[in-house]
């Protein structure tokens, strides 16, 4: 009889532990998700908002079975607000995404241009690299070149620096909007790393 009672007791304890574990981990995942929603994923945020609205309205339904028209109107503009916010955020997201494309295109062109000017010395070895910080003005003219990381090989550093000096101007940035220019190209790093 004692054995049965002990087994029953442990079984209850185990079930309680499982229950708490489930609650704990479920809550954690919601927190993670909400953090993610706050920073990046706008679509999820909208779903979250909708979910919250739905939960709110459900609870209100339970408490007050009758919903007056005023409250209904209040909810509607709230939904519209969320939607507008969503559109705004989506627009920002789209702009960032479009900019990223443009930045990538310009970056690709700059890389190709400098590669056509870089005469790699024979002392260059795989794994060797040199970093240069470039400051350029709104017209794309390179105003300052600063070596951030030397390769340890004079000829390598010199050849890289010569390629940048010959390049002089990144004409592609003239068509960028001011904000994108400032963010990406007013100050950036060129890394020479032979493959």
């Amino acid at each position, binding site marked *: 009889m004692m054995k049965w009672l002990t087994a029953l007791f442990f079984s209850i304890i185990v079930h309680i532990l499982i229950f708490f574990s489930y609650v704990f981990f479920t809550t954690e995942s919601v927190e993670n998700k909400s953090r993610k929603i706050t*920073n*990046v994923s706008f679509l999820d945020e909208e779903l979250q908002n909708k979910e919250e609205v739905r939960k709110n309205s459900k609870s209100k339904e339970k408490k007050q079975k009758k919903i007056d028209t005023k409250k209904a109107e209040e909810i509607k503009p709230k939904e519209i607000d969320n939607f507008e916010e969503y559109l705004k955020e989506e627009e*920002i*997201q789209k702009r*960032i995404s479009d900019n*990223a494309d443009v*930045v*990538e295109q310009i*970056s*690709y062109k*700059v*890389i190709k241009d*400098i*590669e*056509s*000017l*870089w*005469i*790699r*010395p*024979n*002392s*260059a070895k795989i794994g060797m690299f040199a*970093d240069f910080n470039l400051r350029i003005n709104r017209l794309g003219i390179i105003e300052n070149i600063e070596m951030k990381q030397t390769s340890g*090989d*004079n*000829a*390598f550093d*010199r*050849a*890289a620096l*010569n*390629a940048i*000096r*010959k390049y002089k101007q990144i004409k592609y940035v003239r068509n960028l909007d001011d*904000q994108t220019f400032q*963010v*990406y*190209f007013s100050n*950036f*790093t*060129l*890394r*020479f*790393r*032979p*493959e």
Partner: protein
Amino acid sequence: MKRVILLFFLVLEFKADLVLEITESASKPVKIAILEKNSSSLIGQEIINVISNDLKRTGEFRVLGMDELLSIPINEDEVIQRDWLLLDVDSIIFVEVQNEDNNLEIAYSIFDISYNETEDKRRVLGLPDSLRQSSHYVSDGIYKYFYGIEGISSTKLMYVTRNSDTHKLIISDADGFNEQVLLKSNNSIISPAWSTDAKEIAYVSFENNRAQVFTQNLATGQRNLILSSRSSVSSPAWSPDNKDLAFTSTKDGNSEIYIINLESRKITRLTENLAIDTEPAWSPEGKKIIFTSDRSGSPQIYEIDVRTKLKRRLTTEGNYNARASYLDKDEIIFVHRSKTDFNIAKLDLGSRNLEVLTSTKNDESPCIAPNGNVIIYSTKDGNLSYLAGINISSKVSFKLPALYGELKEPAWSPFLR
């Protein structure tokens, strides 16, 4: 686009640190002009011609002729940067020659066009009769400035020539000029090899109607007989510390690889196989030797550890791979038969990537320049054999003047400093 890295990207703050990676380089030569500074002299022009030819031969420089220039400054102050930018010139080399009191002094400066200032200044001192050699040193200085590794214009070549029944062992400058005959014989001379300090050479001579390995001091001319055998002896190769010679001999019945200590004259047998083992070459650190063996049925390259005598086969592609040397500890070059042609090929021992370097047809005896960037080999065009070379980084090939009916077994000297 993997080479564009957005290291730091926050949507709300709009901050990004853009890193662009340049991984490929232009396959074009450095464009320069070489001008005499403050004067125009015959000796100056002669020196400029030597330097110009040295640099052109590498394939890594484009040296502008005087007729291509928009202006001819006589010193740095007269350089009009715009003229040179239009020509896309990288640098002007100003050469100043002083030949007084039995001393030759060549001062040179490298004027960088994009910086619009002198970046490097150096001097080479020599005797008046060393004009070509001194000029070669200038070429090497310029080469090192741009390409970061030592130039090889001031090094020497050794090779064997044969005209009818006369065999000669010759040393010349790396450009083929200034030949000096070290040995003349009516019998064959084979397998010349430089010691790693460039003070001595070794070769096999049949002058006494038997195969004899000699070493010869280049400064004194003194010859030492190291080995004498009625059986076949060939391919002496100096160990990196110059204490040993590896060689091939049939003294025990068939062709095997041996090492002889030059001081004690003790001979150690390295290989023991019924097949032919020949053409030994030391690894840069002196711990291993590569050799050619037909133990698998066809000539292939093998490597043996000198201490443990453990062997491994290095080449697997093709049915003829022979006469190997280490380019560095990770790469070897050798003669490789591709279809019907014999070419010089390079094998990466890590990636197993095989690259055929030459496009001539009957290539043999490849040897590597001390900077590891140029390979010279003998090749045949009809009945005429000559020396040809290829620059590994620029892939530019060149020919040395063919003056002999037969020219073979080139050996490139170490740096002569």
